[in-house]
């Protein structure tokens, strides 16, 4: 187990390096660099000397491998550089928005899980009944409804029914929990629906599979309460794939937030990414992509390890 963990951790290094190279090269394929773009926005004529000076200040005049070297060595000492657009440190810009996005993501996860596991189990226990049908429709619709549109519908519903829309300025949870929750519950619902749909489907199918097992028949045959058969014997064994899906979808949630934050005008990581990617803010995009990719890989890794923790039959070598 320990050997496996170390091996997997080491394998992450080439993948992350690949991500870094890919982003770095892709960014520099973009037509027109940040300096041109920025001066273009400000308008007016800019002398070539000014452009060259600004490039030199941002380190863009160096050879491309030197730029890459600078960036990589910076990361190792925890320096992600300064945003080429705002001039503020990238790490500060990101961490101030991470809080909001993470909160929405966690709220969505809690919401989705508390909905999905009972619903999926119910659907499996009453297979082919109307309960099952209703839950199935709920689940398959969740895969089709775009989260940003659901967000718009939620806003529309709130507006028409209560004449109220979530406030546009973010209130941290430690300042005013109620205000914070009343603002963030809606985007969490919008991105959480798809999430719960995926988890519901997974719960239903694994519980159905487990209920076919011999040990369930044995448990029933010895006269165990159905409540215990399902709760203890079936649930425990069915939870593994469900945990996997919850883990993997959590990483996808970050992607869903990219679009949904736009609808609710939330100043989170997703909005920052959309804003900076169009501005060719090299340092910012690089840092954001690395952050998301690392997170994604770590979640995958954590899911694999959880498997071994939850199911002693699984041994990694």
């Amino acid at each position: 187990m320990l050997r496996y963990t170390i091996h997997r951790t080491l394998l992450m290094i080439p993948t992350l390096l690949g991500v870094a190279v890919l982003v770095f090269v892709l960014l520099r394929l973009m037509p027109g660099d940040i300096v041109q773009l920025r001066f273009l926005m400000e308008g007016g004529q800019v002398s070539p000397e000014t452009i060259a000076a600004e490039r030199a200040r941002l380190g863009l005049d160096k050879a491309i491998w030197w730029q890459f070297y600078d960036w990589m060595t910076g990361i190792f000492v925890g320096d992600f550089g300064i945003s080429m657009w705002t001039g503020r440190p990238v790490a500060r810009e990101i961490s101030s928005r991470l809080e909001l996005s993470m909160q929405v993501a966690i709220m969505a996860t809690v919401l989705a899980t508390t909905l999905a596991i009972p619903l999926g189990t119910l659907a499996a226990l009453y297979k082919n009944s109307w309960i099952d049908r209703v839950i199935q429709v709920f689940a398959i619709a969740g895969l089709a409804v775009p989260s940003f549109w659901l967000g718009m519908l939620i806003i529309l519903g709130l507006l028409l029914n209560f004449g109220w829309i979530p406030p546009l300025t973010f209130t941290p949870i430690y300042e005013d929990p109620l205000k914070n929750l009343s603002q963030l519950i809606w985007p969490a619902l919008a991105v959480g629906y798809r999430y719960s749909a995926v988890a519901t489907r997974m719960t239903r199918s694994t519980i159905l599979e487990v209920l076919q097992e011999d040990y369930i028949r044995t448990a029933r045959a010895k006269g165990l309460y159905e409540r215990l058969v399902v709760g203890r014997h079936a649930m425990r064994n069915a939870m593994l794939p469900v945990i996997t899906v919850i883990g993997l979808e959590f990483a996808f949630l970050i992607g869903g937030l990219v679009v949904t934050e736009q609808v609710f005008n939330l100043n989170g990581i997703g909005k920052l990414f959309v804003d900076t990617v169009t501005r060719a803010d090299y340092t910012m995009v690089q840092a954001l992509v690395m952050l998301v990719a690392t997170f994604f890989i770590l979640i995958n890794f954590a899911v694999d390890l959880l498997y071994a923790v939850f199911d002693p039959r699984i041994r990694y070598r």
Partner: protein
Amino acid sequence: MSVITTTPEFTYKVPKRHHPVMQFVVTQPLGAVSLVFIVTLFFAGVFAEFVAPYDPLEIDFTQMLAAPSAEHWLGTDAFGRDVFSRIIYGARTALAVGLIASFIGSTIGAVIGIASAHFGGRVDMAIQGFMDVLLSFPIIVLALAVVAMLGKRLIGGVDVNLILAIAIPMMPRVERVVRSSALAIREMPYIDAARAAGYGDMRIIFRHMAPNVVAPYLIMFTAFMAQAILLEASLSFLGLGVTEPTAAWGLMLSGTSQEFYSQAPWMIIFPGVAISLAVFSFNLFGDSLRDYLDPRLKV
């Protein structure tokens, strides 16, 4: 005296075999229904000129933000453009982009997957390493990065880079699934036979292995049609996909439509319904296709 013995007739009913298409309809009724919807959508998209009651670009300032009526079934937008007509033309955009992108993404993915399984060893390791890199991004993050970095490039009215941006994140996902199928096929005796006969790699990959991974390929292809439509809508919504004045579902939801939440809710409701229905039917069709072709495949 005669004993009448009636030997009971042996009635083993041979299961009736239908034509493959009929078989699909009989065993997967939901899939068939969704297929009918998909075909209808395709016809609406292809023959949009004849189906749509109005020109989708026609601006009519006397009819701005008109509510749904007999004249404008689904109302009009802030420029007085007919929402229903724009949705029909939007079907053309969504299906064209979705079809081309999924085709490119899943075909390239499938070919790489087969090749990776066929060559094995170091080649396989290198390819899988690269795929791992691509798989470390959430789909939309990679698509967004590609589309922002490549910019727009119109060839024949279609934004090639938008299609690439949708196809690239799909490619490694198809590759994974096809590769795992191809790994099993690689061990088959007929592949050994082909190798023993001295056939080249290309011939083995395309003539012997590829036909045997058609099932996972088709399943992934339809599943990604749904994803591609969703992705195109998201990108257009963010203003990085299809741009005005072209009619596209995601685009209809962005910009002005959000300023008229209470005045013109139809501008928000109907394009979203179109996206959801299209994605829903492709998902449903994909699921049924999987149940029909290869129920054990995990997508």
